[in-house]
């Protein structure tokens, strides 16, 4: 069997035997979470995402967030994920916003047709301007991927400092979801003459609304 053959070759080359544990010389995990106050985190997130061509807006309340989304999608077709926070904000109930899709095929068809995908996010990262999206029954993968515009409405307390804090809060993401995606700015390519083009296969526009 190829598996056993390859593992045997590896063990012979390394001088190890089957079932032998790894020695204790694995370096300790290196996660350093800095203390950064809320305003500084918001400033950093905004600066980073905007440097990448994304947009950041702030809403003091859920109603305000709802109004910002309404303004952003005016005149465009939109689809909202099933995230409870979007319902809480009243976004799922906005006129012209499709939501509540749980069928895979239908979701794919709708996401390929509409202009704006609206999601929440599980976390955001201040020092990279990233949105962290875990795939769940509430949050499908394609809503933030197929439509040309992506709006993410995120409670501000979900804004972490960065990767080190993310993996401190979520040391084993696989226990919660089959898919965790870090979205850092709009989809982009520079494959022809290294000229930057925003919006390749994913959304060319990303708007993050921080709530609270």
């Amino acid at each position: 069997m190829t598996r056993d053959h390859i593992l045997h070759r590896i063990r012979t080359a390394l001088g190890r035997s089957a079932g032998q544990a790894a020695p204790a010389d694995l370096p300790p995990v290196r996660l350093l979470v800095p203390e950064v106050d809320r305003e500084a985190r918001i400033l950093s997130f905004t600066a980073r995402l905007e440097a990448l061509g994304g947009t950041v807006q702030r809403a003091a309340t859920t109603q305000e967030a709802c109004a910002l989304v309404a303004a952003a999608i005016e005149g465009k077709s939109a689809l909202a994920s099933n995230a409870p926070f979007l319902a809480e904000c009243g976004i799922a109930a906005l006129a012209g916003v499709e939501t509540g899709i749980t069928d895979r095929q239908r979701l794919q068809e709708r996401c390929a047709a509409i202009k704006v995908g609206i999601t929440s996010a599980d976390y955001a990262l201040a020092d990279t301007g990233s949105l962290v999206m875990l795939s769940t029954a509430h949050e499908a993968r394609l809503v933030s991927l197929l439509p040309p515009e992506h709006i993410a409405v995120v409670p501000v307390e979900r804004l972490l400092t960065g990767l080190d804090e993310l993996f401190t809060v979520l040391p084993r993401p696989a226990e919660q979801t089959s898919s965790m995606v870090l979205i850092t700015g709009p989809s982009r390519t520079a494959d022809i003459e290294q000229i930057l083009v925003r919006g390749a296969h994913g959304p060319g526009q990303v708007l993050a609304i921080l709530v609270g």
Partner: protein
Amino acid sequence: MSVEFDQKAHETLADANLQLAIYTSTGRLKRGRVASVASDVLPDYQELRTQANAIKKHAIDNLDYYLEEFERNVTARGGKVVYCKDATAVADFVLGLAKERGAGLIVKSKSMTTEEVDLNERLEHHGLESVETDLGEYILQLNHEKPYHIVLPALHKTRYDVAEIFTRRLNAPHETVIEKQTALACGVLRDKFLKADIGISGANFLVADSGAIVIIENEGNARLTTTAPRVHIVLAGIEKVIPRARDLATFLKLLARSATGQFLSAYTSFLSGARRPGEIDGPDEFYVVLLDNGRTRLLPDREKRQTLYCIRCGACLNACPVYRKIGGYSFPGVYSGPIGAILTPQFLGVTHEPALPFASSLCGACAEVCPVKIDIPKVLLELRSEVQKAETRDNRNRLERLSFRAFAWLMTHPRLYEMAGRIAAWMAPAGEGKWISSAPPWMNLPPVRAWLSQRDLPPPPAKSFREQWRQRR
């Protein structure tokens, strides 16, 4: 120096447009990297490199352990791990699965490993349609070319080349505006994504404690490849395994910065299998194909083993004065630049392209920028020594070996050395200029001429160092 290597290098050197394209592209990536690891934006850059190196070293030193842990965790969530020894085995597995599922259309995201095993050609040979979805890779697939650079596959193509390829291969109207070319390709590919039966991706990391794979990309094509089709197949080299998800905090900070100067790529996907009950989308089936294809050959030697730490960022290509002149296609195999110069000979055997380990000035720029601290010059020296041993064994390059033996003998006999120096000074014309070009024609014979085609010696001084030393003492 092999004829093919030499010829391709000279072709590249003679092509002014290509020289400019390589120089500006790699230059831009170089500057991006430097800015993104500067001490004011990433103060612990060196500590991160040290940590990344230590983790990789540990993972490779205990590779069987982490592969088994990875496999256990993938299997526990219903995924399947398949080991393949070579390109044929990979193609057979994919073909078998495609047949079982009645699949005809495959979408692929960028993966050097699939290039390494010629996966597209092998699948298409059996009547499957296998489509590259990364813009650069798609352009190259349409034109039947291999990637020029690990990170920028179509570095050598201009917008005019692309317009010509799209017109010829897609029957598209002639279009030279890059935004429109991108939109055109993405439109064609969108349709493929939504119809595809199988998605094939590579992996930047295999995470043992999670049974997960990590993919880093900018366009969104890897997300689509791993989300839209019902079946997701991952192809990754066995060396890609890291112990813990938390180690990604270290590697992710280094990878995109080293590759393009981004803090993070637009999309970092952490995928641990098929969609779970309740999840709305994602694949129904998840397979990870672990490829050997020569990798286990690198393990016995402790020094050369470090070649397997590579995370394919491409920083060494951009830093390399040799790559920046001779470009990607001079290198045999799909991996170019300094990392290619140490990977390819070890995958295929040093005698396959013996010139490779010598195509370096050993300046050390590659080792300086490597995010996992691979000592590339040191491995190059090891490989040079292997090439020499192989040539001795096969009794090749006898004249060169004889000359070096004679030289070594002369160097260890000071009186004779001095006498030889005097004879050389007497024979050579005095004054400025190149020694050999003004040397008598009888000396300019083929073996000497070949050696001197890339080198020259200054004229010997009227008084040697040893003579001057004696006078001043």
